[in-house]
């Protein structure tokens, strides 16, 4: 929209086009790393992607995106040795980590070809070859020896030279390391490795050049096959985990967990049968379970108004004591109104709530060809004008390009805020042609194709008006809550997101349309369910869910404390 921002976009595209190949390689790299190390959380522990220009001795030169290393020292004595580390240490959550180094040139003739490939901890002297010092490990090309934190090597493998590809694999489960030469495993070189080692290479001969492959290219050695073996080992270990003498107890415990899970989610009949067949007591009265089941059914079918009413009837003080919960339910009700599933708008749409298939994806039967974009925009305008946060249309909350592009087109006059312009510009430009195309499609479809689409509030004008009115009530409830209980950013965001739906002619395909998905009813349902259970002094989370959550937490704790086996034990693998 504004000059500078489009300029910025232009610049970006130049960069992208200027190094398309690099971009491709980057994509390859990311894909390969994700596939090799799915358990690694890169926000916590980034993977090595290149050599570090900061963590190297001065005799080392880097090029080709810091993947190529060349030696530029004198190379006369061991004092001229020089090393470089990768940008990051190897995360334990890799389970098995692997990188390869290709010898591009063994260096000038007349020198002994000192060259070491290996691992070192942060802070190890870089004026040395890997392996010579404490917490440093290397495999040297001149004699094929391995150096384990020592100046004297042990016979290990063959020598290596120009054209050879040397791989280094760290097993973070048993803390060992082996090397490969041209795709052949040379066997264990080091054991009892410390955590947080960095890939490292060291050179000492003028003219030596090596290239690293941290996943930029396919590896010569079949590391994935090695990983398969360890995944199988870890999974077999889990499967065979001894439960010892307590086998009977074990079974009873599992049955208890399943029963409590069923009760928690009010699978009334199933819970009853299960409890009976496993000879257990249920710690909640059947009537109570049925009540919760009823409320949950209403929430899950999108009939929020009824759900709120029923809750108030059955648990009179619950929502009163929990205004935030009530607010959340009402926001959901608003969304369901937009969806056309809430009972209030259904009545107005002339449909019996009971006979209506509530699944949002199902076709609507009543199609009045109204709702042009401008009608909606008008409503939006109307709704938003009094005291509404001017940030709204910036899409700060949703932060998706789509929102910006759309709001910028559909409500230019309603949002004259200067901030909006800036934001629209800087982000709006990189948003994509996709948004534009969508808009154009909308132009064509207005009043023509819309007939076949889902319609706002089920398509009835009265319902739309009811929805608008409800929105205003919600707005004032929000203001009231703020006055009473202070700011609540979660509530604010919730409301904003819900109202954003009105900014689109077809909210379902809009970037905030995910809210309309029936799957979004589930968290609402479980929050309400937990609140009810809490008032009965029952756990707000079923033990089964707690156990699953704990297992997941354990795995991330293992990753942090350096237990590599977490890489091959995803909780999800056991849930399906």
């Amino acid at each position, binding site marked *: 929209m504004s000059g500078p921002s489009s300029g910025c976009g232009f610049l970006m595209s130049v960069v992208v086009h200027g190094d398309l190949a690099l971009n491709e390689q980057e994509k390859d790299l990311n894909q390969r790393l994700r596939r090799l190390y799915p358990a690694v959380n890169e926000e916590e522990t980034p993977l090595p992607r290149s050599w570090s220009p900061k963590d190297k001795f001065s005799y080392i030169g880097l090029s080709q995106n810091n993947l190529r290393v060349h030696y530029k020292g004198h190379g006369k004595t061991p004092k001229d040795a020089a090393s470089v580390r990768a940008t990051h240490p190897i995360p334990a959550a890799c389970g098995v980590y692997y990188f390869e180094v290709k010898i591009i040139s063994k260096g000038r003739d007349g020198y002994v070809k000192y060259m070491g490939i290996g691992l070192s901890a942060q802070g190890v002297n870089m004026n040395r070859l890997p392996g010579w010092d404490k917490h440093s490990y290397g495999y040297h090309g001149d004699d094929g020896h391995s150096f384990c934190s020592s100046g004297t090597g042990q016979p290990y493998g063959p020598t290596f030279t120009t054209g050879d590809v040397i791989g280094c694999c760290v097993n973070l489960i048993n803390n060992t390391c082996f090397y490969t030469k041209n795709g052949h495993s040379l*066997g264990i070189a080091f054991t009892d490795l410390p955590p947080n080692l960095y890939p490292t290479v060291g050179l000492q001969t003028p003219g030596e050049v090596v290239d690293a492959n941290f996943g930029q290219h396919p590896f010569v050695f079949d590391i994935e*096959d090695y990983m398969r073996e360890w995944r199988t080992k870890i999974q077999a270990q889990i499967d065979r985990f001894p439960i010892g003498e307590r086998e009977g107890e074990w079974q009873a415990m599992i049955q208890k967990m399943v029963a409590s899970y069923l009760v928690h989610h009010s699978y009334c009949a199933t819970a009853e049968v299960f409890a009976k067949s496993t000879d257990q007591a249920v710690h909640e009265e059947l009537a109570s379970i049925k009540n919760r089941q009823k409320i949950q059914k209403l929430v899950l079918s999108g009939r929020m108004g009824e759900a709120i009413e029923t809750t108030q009837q059955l648990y009179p003080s619950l929502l009163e004591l929990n205004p935030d919960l009530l607010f959340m339910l009402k926001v959901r009700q608003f969304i369901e109104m937009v969806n056309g599933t809430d009972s209030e708008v259904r009545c107005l749409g002339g449909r019996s709530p009971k006979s209506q298939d509530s699944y949002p994806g199902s076709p609507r039967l009543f199609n009045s060809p109204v709702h042009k974009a401008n009608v909606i925009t008008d409503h939006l305008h109307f709704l938003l004008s009094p005291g509404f946060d001017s940030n709204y249309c910036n899409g700060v909350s949703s932060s998706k390009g789509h929102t910006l592009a759309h709001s910028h087109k559909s409500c230019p006059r309603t949002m004259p805020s200067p901030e909006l312009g800036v934001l629209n510009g800087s982000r709006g430009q990189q948003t994509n042609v996709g948004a534009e195309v969508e808009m154009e499609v909308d132009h064509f479809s207005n009043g023509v194709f819309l007939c076949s689409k889902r319609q706002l509030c089920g398509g009835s004008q009265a319902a739309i008006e009811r929805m608008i009115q409800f929105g205003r009530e919600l707005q004032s409830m929000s203001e009231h809550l703020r006055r009473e209980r202070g700011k609540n950013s979660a509530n604010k965001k919730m409301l904003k997101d819900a109202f954003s739906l009105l900014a689109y002619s077809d909210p379902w395909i809009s970037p905030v349309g995910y809210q309309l998905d029936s799957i979004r009813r589930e968290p609402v349902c479980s929050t309400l369910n937990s609140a009810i259970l809490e008032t009965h002094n029952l756990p707000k989370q079923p033990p089964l869910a707690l156990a699953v959550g704990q297992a997941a937490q354990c795995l991330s704790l293992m990753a942090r404390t350096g237990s590599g086996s977490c890489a091959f034990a995803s909780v999800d693998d056991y849930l399906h």
Partner: protein
Amino acid sequence: MMACLLEAPLRISVLSEVTATSRHYVDRLFDPDPQNVLQGVIDMKNAVIGNNKQKANLIVLGAVPRLLYLLQQSSSSLELRTECAVVLGSLAMGTENNIKSLVDCHIIPALLQGLLCSDLIFIEACLRCLRTVFISPVTPVQLLYTDPTVIPHLMSLLSRSRHTKEYITQIFAHCCKTPEHQTVLFNHSAIQNIAPLLISPSDKVRMQALKCFSVLAYENTQVSMTLVNVLVDGEQLSQVFVRMMQRDKPIEMQLTAAKCLTYMCRAGAIRTDDNCIILKTLPCLVRMCSKERLLEERVEGAETLAYLMEPDVELQRIASFTDHLVSMLADYFKYPSSVSAITDIKRLDHDLKHAHELRQAAFKLYASLGSNDEDIRKKITETENMMDRIVSGLSESSIKVRLAAVRCLHSLSRSVQQLRTSFHDHAVWKPLMKLLQNAPDEVLVMASSTLCNLLLEFSPSKEPILDSGVIELLCSLTQSDSPALRVNGIWALMNMAFQADQKVKVEIVRALGTEQLFRLLSDPDTNVLMKTLGLLRNLLSTRPHIDQIMSSHGKQIMQAVTLILEGEHSIEVKEQTLCILANIADGNTAKELIMTNDDMLQKIKYYMGHSNVKLQLAATFCISNLIWNEEDDSP
């Protein structure tokens, strides 16, 4: 023993009771009411499951012929016939004695006959029983091939159901033991029929199909060549095998797939530098040798690997640095381990049973690894206690271990350096000589071949071997029926005579006897002839020796030389003969034997004008020696 005695009285009473009930089961098979018979068979089925005693009782009481009769009667209901097959299958699951009794009752033809029935359930029951009988080591596999219609019929039944697939492939996998069996199966389209089963959803079917291919391809070029062109669901068979070697697959599957590819490679159907061999099969087999694997798997892994790389030095080099293979094999000699002996009798028993197998497999693999590359041989001999292990292996009671040990020694004896050092230090000639005294031919061939190398001029073991009276032994080898032994015997003598003392040469001639020498000169095996000529040449070196030997055997030698030069022989043989003649010409008195022999001079002249340069050179060398002597003698 004690426990048995204590329990004995109780056992007897139980036994008589059991026999009584068993008798009752058998009696019911003869009931006139077919419905009662059926119920009787069903009850019998339930009674024998997992009860070996009951099975033995029923067999003793003659249930088998009756069951077979009922099974074969077309008047029996299908249900009854099926139940009979099930009970027989259950009886076969017992001890080896049970199987013997069943086979003696001609169960195999009866069941094979049953396969002609159209009912699948009945066929499956018959196949299941046949499978159990055929996989037993006591069943002669030939019984599968006596009726030529059986194999094609089994092929046609193969795809009927998951069970027919599993049982039939399992039968094939166990009953294909000779090249003839391979050919029969191959000619009945075994490959085309079994290949699709490699991608069956059933693990068992896949595994059995894979085993079929390994036994079919073993040392069989025709099968191997066909296999490379087979596609399974659009994918090359070799790639299917590669996938079966993935490390998360069951070990048995990995190992068997590696065998298939090994056999295909050795048959020349896959190149040794193909990625599926070099990057997949070889590393897979090395993994099978690791300590983590079961002892049986380690034996098979090492043997297969030895076989794979035997003819290819590049594979030997790669294997030699893969996963510390050379030192990993040293572990094969540590069974039974001292720990197992103390802690666990069962384990000790297991270890003992496999100890010989492990040792011979390791020796075989070392032999294969070291057969070409000097650096690898050095690495092997430097492995902990290697030479000691070979030395003790040479005198082990197990013939298999002795043979493998001597093969290993033979492979290492190709190294000049090792002959000079470790071989001498460990006096390997001693056990080797002992081995040569009294051993089967296959050991003898390897041992004598090794001895040839130990008798090379630069080998420090040569002297002590000479002193140990080896000449008689070698001379007796030259009289063997086996050409390989004759070659090795004469070869060793040839090496021994090279630059030897007069005394040794005389001794050789004496021990061998001119008669035997000339018999060897007309040996049908060219190798024997060549080495004999080589021996003559070595004997006839340095002037005094030449004159001495020619003075005593000149006539016969000249006769033999004439005979060979006139005969139909290869260029190499004639060249060697002319060289002998040249040596004779080098003697002072011996040269006269040529100079006075006009015919011989004519022959030399003829060969000087021969179109072959080698023969020209040899003949010229002859003349030159004749002339040289004359000049030397002239005052």
